[in-house]
């Protein structure tokens, strides 16, 4: 990349997407300066998926989940415990201030001018007002969250997990696998039903029950308080019920971390809005990972994908889009078929595609365990598939959705 030496690129976000953007810029021979603003956590990038799995279960230490540090040819300036606090789009500069996870002072800051900006600020846990700061009540998004939860486990706490999405369901399984008494509060009819649908939701519920998790279905937490300065926490429910817990894990989803772009004029209706090539309305500002909302060319709709593989694939792609622009080429569309997995009680749940608005499902069994394998259709076409311990069957579907989608423009559009 000749002629790049005097350029400055700012990468906002210190997790998988940001890490991959930096590595990809380096791999492509960018020789300018990269200012990598890694956010409030103050730790080197690590594997978030391991938090609710291997780390909670004590199978790895924090050092064992750090993403590999690399030697870079580009000039790299790392700003830890620092955040992008504001974007001045007309002057192509960002204000970088110091901030810690504890919400510390963001007193003085530095405006950093950029030739390109990659927004990889991801998400933070959604914690309803009034639920924060109570003894023994924790969300799970960061390594610090996981370590706080882990500290409590030695006391063999009675545990309540609120919310049965991917993280709630996985945490209930991991904590139960540690031998703790666990109660799982499910807002809907079945755990993970919004993700997987009824069939795998039922399967997941049966697994929780078979492992001795108490489940409260169709229940919403209406109040959370502490009975004394060290707990226990008292939870009240919309059906009038009540329970106490030494440890409460909130699995209530996450919100995109793009409030720092307020007032920038960029589309912030759900994450940071991009075109098919992951460019925002500003041609030198790109997004990747959980924060990026883009129009998926195969599914013909806007989406955000909150999964690991997507963050690394989009990061690479955003760099390709930037380089295409530099070279006067038309940047390609990002068309990867979404993929994620979840580990619960030694079973591997995997899903590919985008099941939203499916109008038909086929349920069969696949894999050695004979567990349910679900194929989701829209207008007669396969749009998603999910299975348990059936990686080959799931990955075959990924290839099929990708290739059938590529040969028909907007194949899965509504």
């Amino acid at each position, binding site marked *: 990349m000749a002629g790049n030496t005097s350029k400055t690129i700012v990468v906002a976000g210190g997790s*998988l997407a940001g*890490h*991959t953007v930096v*590595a990809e810029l380096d*791999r492509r021979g960018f020789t300018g300066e990269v200012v990598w603003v890694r956010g409030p956590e103050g730790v080197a990038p690590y*594997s978030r*998926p*391991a938090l609710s*799995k*291997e780390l909670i279960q004590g199978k*790895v230490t924090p050092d*064992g*989940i*750090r*993403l*590999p540090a690399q030697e870079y040819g580009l000039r790299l300036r790392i700003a830890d415990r620092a955040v992008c606090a504001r974007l001045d789009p007309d002057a192509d500069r960002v204000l970088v201030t110091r901030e810690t996870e504890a919400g510390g002072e963001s007193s003085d800051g530095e405006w950093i001018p950029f030739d390109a900006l990659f927004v990889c600020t991801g998400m933070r846990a959604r914690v309803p007002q009034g639920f924060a700061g109570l003894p023994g009540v924790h969300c799970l998004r960061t390594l610090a969250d996981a370590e706080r939860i882990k500290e409590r486990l030695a006391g063999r706490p009675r545990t309540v997990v609120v919310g049965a999405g991917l993280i709630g369901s996985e945490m209930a399984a991991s904590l139960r696998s540690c031998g703790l008494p666990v109660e799982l509060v499910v807002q809907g009819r079945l755990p993970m039903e919004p993700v997987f649908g009824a069939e795998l939701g039922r399967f997941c519920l049966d697994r929780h029950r078979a492992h001795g998790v108490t489940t409260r279905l169709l229940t919403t937490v209406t109040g959370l308080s502490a009975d004394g300065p060290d707990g226990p926490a008292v939870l009240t429910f919309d059906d009038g019920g009540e329970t106490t817990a030494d440890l409460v894990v909130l699995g209530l989803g996450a919100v995109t971390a793009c409030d720092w772009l307020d007032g920038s004029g960029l589309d912030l209706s759900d994450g940071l809005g991009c075109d098919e090539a992951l460019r925002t309305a500003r041609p030198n500002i790109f997004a990747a990972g959980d924060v990026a909302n883009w129009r998926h060319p195969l599914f013909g709709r806007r989406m955000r994908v909150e999964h*690991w*593989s997507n963050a*690394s*694939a989009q990061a*690479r792609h955003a760099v390709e889009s930037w380089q295409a622009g530099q070279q006067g080429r038309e940047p390609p569309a990002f068309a990867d078929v979404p*993929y994620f*997995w979840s*580990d619960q009680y030694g079973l*591997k749940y*995997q899903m*590919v595609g985008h099941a939203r608005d499916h109008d038909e499902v086929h349920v069969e069994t696949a*894999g*050695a*365990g004979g567990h349910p394998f679900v194929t989701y259709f829209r207008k007669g076409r396969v749009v998603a598939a999910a299975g348990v*311990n*059936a*990686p*080959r069957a*799931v*990955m075959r579907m*990924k*290839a099929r959705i990708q290739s059938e989608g590529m040969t028909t423009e907007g194949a899965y559009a509504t």
Partner: protein
Amino acid sequence: MKLTVDRNLCDGNGVCMGIAPEVFDIDDDLTLHIVDEIPDDPAIHAQVRQSVTSCPVLALTLEE
């Protein structure tokens, strides 16, 4: 390119297989298999590098 997997770490989550299906395969026991000869194709080499950095449990090691 010499690619190895630490079987004590790999949990068969399929991230690498999703990125480089010509190189990785996972059977229904969740055991990872790597092809004997990585195809001599720059696109596949790029996928392999990406798999190594994306493995969520850092089970893959690459010597180029």
